[in-house]
């Protein structure tokens, strides 16, 4: 008997909770570091980027108004689902080449732990960043953080840990996002989308585009219905282009880090605060 032929997965985009191909019909070849063919990934078009922004905008009211407890539970659920697919991610990461099984396993574990860490922030960040302000008058005065809205994320190089480390802080606070996956290693990003799709995360909260970051990121940076952009994964030239485009509607911009990031280190809260607004509500006190 001959060996059973494997059923290969078609890697598509993740938009509004669904997995469409690029409307442009374009795809590109993803290879391992040795040059072996791994898959054809979708090469997202401008229309795909705009569809993703529309999906993220549509998801924003529901997600930003969900209780912090609920958002925390869902992030924790993503961690559970990721843990359950550990072997699959290890296989995908090692297939890319350059990383051994042990190291890949550590990366996946760290990604799971990172999600759990951020899950716990959902109902604490407001207490840490908010304040009751002692104004000089008979007024109740309260400041609280609120999500900026739709955030574009240019994911860093690397398969999973960096990707999870940039998505989780953006969504845990109530933003929705459109992620441009690492161009060279897009396959784990789409497999992560399968995790997200089975974690009770409402469709559209995270949208993932694969393809050319140099093409897609400027479309998002110049999109007038995007409120913020994380340029962590953008090379210096692309980052400048995107930051210039982002000025058109005063997007909140998280610039690429000055030094390479150690994704295993304590991330701090800056990735959350970059896409939070402060709202201050006043009310008179009297009888």
């Amino acid at each position, binding site marked *: 008997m001959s060996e059973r032929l494997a059923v290969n997965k078609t890697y598509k985009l993740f938009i509004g909770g669904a997995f469409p191909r690029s409307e442009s019909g374009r795809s590109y070849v993803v290879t391992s570091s040795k040059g072996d063919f791994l898959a054809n990934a979708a090469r997202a078009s401008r229309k795909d980027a705009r569809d993703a922004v529309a999906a993220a905008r549509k998801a924003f009211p529901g997600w930003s108004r969900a209780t912090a407890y609920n958002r925390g539970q869902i992030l924790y659920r993503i961690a559970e689902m990721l843990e359950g697919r550990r072997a699959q991610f290890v296989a995908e990461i090692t297939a890319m080449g350059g990383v051994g099984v042990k190291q890949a396993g550590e990366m996946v574990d760290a990604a799971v732990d990172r999600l759990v860490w951020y899950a716990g922030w959902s109902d604490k960040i407001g207490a840490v960043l908010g304040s009751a*302000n002692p*104004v000089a008058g008979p007024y109740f005065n309260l400041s609280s953080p609120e999500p900026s*809205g739709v955030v574009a994320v240019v994911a860093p190089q690397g398969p999973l840990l960096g990707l999870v480390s940039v998505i989780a802080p953006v969504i845990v606070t109530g933003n929705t996002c459109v992620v441009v996956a690492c161009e060279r290693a897009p396959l784990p990003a789409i497999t992560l989308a399968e995790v997200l799709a089975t974690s009770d995360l409402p469709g559209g909260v995270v949208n993932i585009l694969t393809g050319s970051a140099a093409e897609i990121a400027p479309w998002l940076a110049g999109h007038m219905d995007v409120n913020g952009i994380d340029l962590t994964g953008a090379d210096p030239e692309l980052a400048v282009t995107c930051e210039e485009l982002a000025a058109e509607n005063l997007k*909140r911009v998280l610039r690429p880090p000055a030094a390479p990031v150690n994704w295993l280190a304590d991330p701090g809260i800056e990735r959350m605060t970059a896409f939070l607004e*402060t709202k*201050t509500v*006043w009310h008179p006190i009297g009888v």
Partner: protein
Amino acid sequence: MFEYAPAPESRDIVDIRPSYGLFINGEWVEPQSEARHKTVNPATEEVLAEVAWAGEADVDRAVQAAAKAFPVWSAMPGAERAKYLFRIARLIQERARELAVLETLDNGKPIRESRDVDLPLVAAHFFYYAGWADKLAYAGFGPDPRPLGVAGQVIPWNFPLLMLAWKIAPALACGNTVVLKPAETTPLTALAFADICRQADLPPGVVNIVTGAGETGAALVNHPGVDKVAFTGSTEVGRLIARSLAGTRKKLTLELGGKAANIVFEDAPLDQAVEGVVNGIFFNQGHVCCAGSRLLVQESIAADLLEALKRRLGTMRLGDPLDKNTDIGAINSAEQLAKIRELSEAGEAEGAERWSPACPIPDRGYWFPPTVFTGVAQSHRIAREEIFGPVLSVLTFRTPAEAVEKANNTPYGLSAGVWTEKGSLMLWTASRLRAGVVWSNTFNRFDPTSPFGGYKESGYGREGGRHGLEGYLAL
């Protein structure tokens, strides 16, 4: 209307020099640039003084002075920096009347406002941030938060000294040094502040004041020696600055335009709401980025509210800003007056109904009567564009959801107002408004402890409160 005898505040308390140089490294210096500009009293068009318009070489000199002062100032124990700021706060209090009169002369705002709102808030702001200077480790930005370096700060003409305080106080408290450019039409209180820095014996170079217009501002924010840029002004200029800073490591905070909705629900206390609406749009002649320029009133009470509003506007006194009875002062400049006129004409042309109370206008100076537009559609320019003048656009709504939808239907997101006696409706509305400040059953309240700043195209970063430190610290 009652007849009031004039009650002018004396201007003898101020001593305006015929001409001013630049304040760099603790000294008054003559600019290398030969450009000079006359600053006028907008209520009379009288020339008050001639000021320098700093060029690139002058800005460079100021930035270098600030850079040279930075190691000393940032290394100074926070408690010592605090004492300098406390000194400044006290000096402002001591000279409050003089500064209020000077502000009113140069800006055109009523003395009642410069005396009772601007100056007390200026002093309070320095007091507040003085107290932070030795407590930064407790502010939630890590155990040893560091200053950024030289802050280049550009401020507008609507609250000249207050905006200076919002910029300089947190910058200095955090250990940064400053080059500040006041607006071209209102430089005098900033130049008076330079004198206060000397009286406080502030180390040379910690605060530098360069006067000028847009080109001076551009030279400042684009100077490579500047580590932090803070700008308050129009969204249009904010965009230019954000674009020009792309690819640099400069930290940027922007406080830009607004088109705030002031929402009045049918259960609101009518008389209080009318006072709030008036304060919302006619305070400081409407030269307020967070002005309640769009009145959204529930249809069921629209007629009653408008009648009460018009009756109230009939009692407003427009005229000599130095008169203590004056409610509405002069428009700050001929240019701004032209802009207000142009947009008001567009309002009429697009079909809205224009109304102003009978209101005598002085013969000289720049003036615009309080104006109310009814029948305004969301598509009208007067409902979309920032007028920055005493012009109110009135729209109506039927349901709370419609009110929120209309309130948020703007690229801006600086402030909003909500008027209702029902607590749950107030909180429901406030939580849905995409704006940085929501005033419920009040409007245009400011306090140094309370963060201020916008969502969306109203800019980013906060001024005031613990939040206001973030823009001046390396995280």
